[in-house]
């Protein structure tokens, strides 16, 4: 699978401040979560990809087009949803969509048709005929999202698309991202601080911290534990079960009441576990391979930077 974005040794300085240091990154087709604490360099990286800021050193390609001189060619194929409100004051929702479409090269009639089509996809009703200044946060998010996809881009860069949304709207927004990726084969870079959103829709995760890429891998590989273990939920006397397992020479931790983490592979442990449960009069309610939490991976990556700085 060829990479959508390839960056080699990319560095960006703002005067004496270095925002990005020697960034090497490959982003593959699919949904990629771009994570990082504030000041990590996420916005700078996005602006570089969009050709809004120039790189100090290094090189890169976006959709096979070299960064730098060919920024407008790259922008033709990228849809960008900024974090900040970017609506055009004084216009209605549908007029805003028309301006966005026509600035992307669509003709007048096609721009109107496309504007309505995308607003329908985003679940915008009659609000589209209201001035954008009167919109709620949810409606503004929808409009920003709609403006980003109006020209049918290959790659979408979404900056905090679910911030400020209620749970229902948030799920709807994530669902739209899933549909675009799954049914329309769009690649998405999801820049967010909301880790459950990344877990819900992303195939890949990139963690930026201190201006460098700390983690870049498939979400599935990252959340897989280094040492295999089982997460077991029980009903009954969990302490007794722990004692039985210890007597059988198995290492066990009680992570929460009625929840145990047992080191080892499921196939090796299952018969011993069932025996011990029977002896301790415990019921096993579920048994799943343990996973690393994305939050822990994120915190570890950020901690590394703090440690290096101090």
């Amino acid at each position, binding site marked *: 699978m060829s990479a959508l974005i390839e960056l080699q040794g990319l560095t960006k300085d*703002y005067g004496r*401040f270095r*925002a990005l240091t020697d960034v090497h990154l490959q982003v593959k087709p699919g949904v990629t979560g771009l994570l990082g604490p*504030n*000041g*990590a*360099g*996420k*916005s*700078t990286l996005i*602006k570089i990809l*969009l050709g*809004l*800021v*120039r790189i100090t050193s290094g090189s890169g390609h976006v959709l096979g087009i070299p960064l730098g001189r060919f920024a*407008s060619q790259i*922008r*033709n194929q*990228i849809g*960008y949803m*900024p974090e*900040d*409100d*970017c*609506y*055009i*004051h*004084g*216009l209605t929702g549908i*007029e805003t969509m*028309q*301006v*966005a479409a*026509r*600035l*992307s*090269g*669509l*003709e*007048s009639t096609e*721009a109107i048709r496309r504007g309505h089509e995308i607003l329908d996809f985003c679940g915008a009703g009659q609000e589209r005929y209201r001035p954008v200044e009167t919109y709620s946060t949810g409606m503004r998010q929808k409009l*920003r999202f709609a*403006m980003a996809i109006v*020209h049918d881009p290959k790659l979408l860069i979404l900056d905090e698309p679910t911030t400020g949304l209620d749970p229902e709207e948030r799920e709807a927004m994530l669902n739209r991202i899933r549909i675009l990726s799954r049914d329309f084969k769009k690649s998405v870079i999801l820049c967010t601080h909301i880790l459950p959103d990344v877990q819900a829709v992303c195939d890949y995760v990139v963690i930026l911290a201190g201006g460098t890429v700390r983690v870049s891998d498939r979400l599935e590989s990252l959340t897989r534990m280094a040492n295999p273990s089982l997460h077991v939920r029980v009903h009954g006397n969990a302490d007794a079960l722990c004692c039985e397992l210890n007597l059988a020479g198995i290492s066990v931790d009680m992570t929460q009441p009625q929840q145990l983490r047992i080191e080892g592979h499921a196939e090796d442990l299952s018969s011993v576990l069932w025996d011990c449960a029977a002896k301790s009069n415990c019921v096993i309610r579920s048994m799943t391979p343990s996973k690393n939490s994305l939050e822990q991976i994120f915190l570890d990556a950020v901690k590394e930077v703090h440690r290096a700085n101090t």
Partner: protein
Amino acid sequence: MSALRAVFIYEWKRSLTFGRMIWWLIMAGFPCLITALLIWIQSTESPIPLDQRDSIWSMIYYITVPCVCTAMSVLLTAGPAIASELEQRSWVYLATRPHGIFYLLLGKYAVAVTWGFTAALAGLSLAVLLCNAESKMQIWDAMARLSLLSALGYAAVFLFLGALFPRRAMVFCVMYTAVVEVVLGAFPALINRITVQYRLRSLLVQWVPLSDDVKNSPAMEYAIGQGSPMAHTFWLLLLTLIFLVAAIAVARLKEFTAASESDL
């Protein structure tokens, strides 16, 4: 062209706010107010001699219409073209459209020109009707052409300054007008040839019925160029084109960041 039309139409729509309309009326009303004042002074004190009327009214309209009314209207629309989008945080989105920067600036330029020119034309038409000049039609025709050229030239200059200094666009535009157009533009040196004022003044003396005294005054000798109206118009349009291209180039190359952005 669809993008340019869209920006033009919607920029005009955005401009039709109560505050902007009031400002348009003030600008259009300025030449009329000056005309009314002069007519009142003439009626109460001594009237302007008949042979000097056209010269005096032409000079008054030159100052009030292309220099004040048009330039000020254009300053208010072209100067903050980028700053307003940065403040509203819409710049980053508009700039990332495939041809966003080019058409956005061109559209805003067209709006600034039409905004300034319509205000000037409305004010000029009413003012010329009120005045007691002999060659009203000739004065109106010359001032309308000068206003159009003034709008084209100043809009490009202010758009360029707005792109160069988006945070203090209005301040720099006013400073430029005062220092370069008014002071340097009046110097009898090579530098005044690159000002809009020099070209407008040179066209003024050829297009309006000025008296020989005014035309042959030593001040005029240094303040105006000797070329044909066609040549002055050409140089003014060339200057406009250079500033316009420079504004677009600056906007494309400059790394604008929104004022609120702290997250790198």
